[in-house]
């Protein structure tokens, strides 16, 4: 399964599942990252340590560990 960390810059994807533990999952949901939400990868810090994504109109920074827990599919 593809996750958000595998995506390249500029790629647009749809969330299929959140594999995160309870706390992180609630956090992601409160930012609008949930099933069927559309995400776009905007930027990556050196060595993909941190990535910037777009959810709706909001820009969000995520660490690689967190991004890897977001399962996505291509639109």
């Amino acid at each position: 399964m593809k996750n958000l960390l595998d995506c390249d810059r500029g790629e647009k994807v749809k969330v299929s599942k959140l594999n995160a533990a309870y706390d992180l999952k609630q956090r992601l949901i409160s930012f609008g990252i949930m099933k069927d939400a559309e995400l776009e990868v905007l930027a990556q810090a050196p060595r993909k340590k941190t990535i910037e994504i777009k959810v709706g109109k909001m820009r969000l920074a995520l660490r690689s560990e967190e991004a890897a827990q977001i399962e996505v599919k291509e639109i």
Partner: protein
Amino acid sequence: MKESNEKIVCPITAKHIKVALVGQPNVGKSMLINSVSNAHLHVGNFSGVTVDKTEVLFDYKDYKFTVVDLPGTYAFTDYTIEERVTHNYLCAEEYDIIINVMDSTNLEKNLQLTSELLTMSKKLVIALNMSDEADKEGIEVNAQYMSELLNIPCVKVSAAAKTGIEELIDTVVKKFEGEKKEPKLIFSEAVEEEIENIVSYLQKHNFQAVNSYRNIAINLLKENKKTYEKLHEEPIWTELQPIVIEASKHIELHHNTDDIKEAFAEEYAAFNRGIVAEVVKQTTTKHEAKTLTEKIDRLLIHPIFGIPIFLFFMWSLFQLTFTLGNIPMDWISAFFTWLGTTIAPTISNDDVRSLVVDGIIGGVGAVVLFTPNIIILFIGIALLETTGYMSRVAFLLDGFFHKFGLHGQSFIPLVTGFGCSIPAYMSARILKNDRDRLLTLFIIGFMSCGARLPVYVLFTGAFFAQSMAGNVLFGIYISGAILGLIFAKVLKITAFKGVDEPFVMEMPKYRLPTLKLIWHTVLTQTIMYLKKAGTFIAGAAILVWFLSNYPHDVNLDKVYAAKIEKSVSVKQKALLENQLAEAQLGESYLGRLGKFTQPIVAPLGFDWKMNVALQAGLAAKEVVVSTLGVLYSIGGDVDESSKSLANNIRKNIPFASAVAFIIVIMIYLPCLAATTVFAKEAGSWKYAFYLFVFTSVVAYSLAFIGYRVTLMLM
């Protein structure tokens, strides 16, 4: 809407309205309060500026308003301390009405919090803030239609442009006087069916309740604690419980999850998408092109150039602090010298004259002298806070910080720490994990606060050429920060082991801050600095003056008077006079204290004066400069032509000792006030004691190394 209206309001007939201001982070809640009243709450452009609730009072027509500014929260997940503060307030405290502030340019995200507020059964008014920004971006929001759809009054406002404010308050008053209306919140068919089931059960048993049945049903399904507790005691619960459990199962099945909160979040999102589709129109197609924020981000968070650009900004700030700040310093210095020499002849009593000229004017003057440097530093930090660049740096540095056991968001309290440790300690609340927060709290002190700047400027100015001083200053700050990172790692391995907190952070849009906003922020902080100089520092200067002048040894006076009489040259006379002053100072209370504890700091190359200045610095760092000002203005001034403190310091303090002195200043406790806040934020005085021991040991060891190494190199 001035704080006092022309109309005199009778306190008995005036009605009180208590408003809770709620919204997601960075939608301009504090700025809205500032526009409504004439408060000057701290405003920034990143999430988590307001960390605690603040109350603002103002009058409008016949009403007395109390507005409670609550910290921004994305949802009621109780994830961070701020979210807990807001959630607890909304659930447990007494208030009349909620104003939900929204960012008009991003309604869909903002509505997520609104949909949670809709189930709270409180009176609600929606403020569609940043409407001017939405206009610019070609986003058209139909507030009228939105009000109808949600059955909640929605008002377009702009806190920055101050439009729609009056209409908002009128709406709040109208809502306050009117009946509570059931908001329209429509779920998917599956959920609506289950709600209907529970409602009809409650109807059948004619259950007595304040809230509507629909509201109770939704809250039961959402597993709202309060509703659960209430119904748990009711006799119908034994029958109702299985119905609710069955309903929850159906909903979870419908959403293919085992988490009812996730299911409801998806329900809300679907509802919100519907609302946005109805009320928001994008008039221009400009959004397809790259926005300005995206263009700026291309450069500022560039994988290679991002960090060098940030370092360049910081370097420029410290260069400016020194070079630009030095110009008015000469004028201020001249002013205080003039003040001293003008006032001195008007006071006949020797002791009082010394108190006023050496104690008060000398001590306070030494602190006021650094106001220009402080202002430049504050402007720099205000720009960092209000433009939105702060979050970008957190993004860039998270990978690097993570290596040292810190969190990318630790960057925000750490940078605030360059201004003042107190707000820095408070802003550490954005870190959810207790270990991460404690670790950050322990490290904040390594970021040299504004009050330490005067000491640095004084010493770098004394020992380095003007062209180099700015670089040295930058070096001091950077090495403080690097030390902080190293000790973060040490603490992470030893004291604060554990799992890392996830890093999920919003990157706000870039905003050009208004001149007024910067002006207010900097003015408030500068006034605070000067106020401290006028009160606390002046008091400390008087105390230091007293302790350094008494007891006065009359015998010493006699011995030296005889010697001075015998001396032939003017130069020798002056030398003897200074020796007398020095000897008297050594016999004073302060001299005794300094000498008594001097053996402890002797390995660092400190004389007793530096020792005393450092001890006084535990109260506040500004006191270090004022104490040095008092101590070095009395003794040791051999050359009459050199009046300035910097010159005295260069003459009296060896370079190696100065290095050790700066190292101690960099590391040990910031000040008494900050230590108190630290204890409060860390949750216990126990931690403040640890911090004291930790910083003292580190400061002492590193100063010792610094002293020895400098001696070897010289």
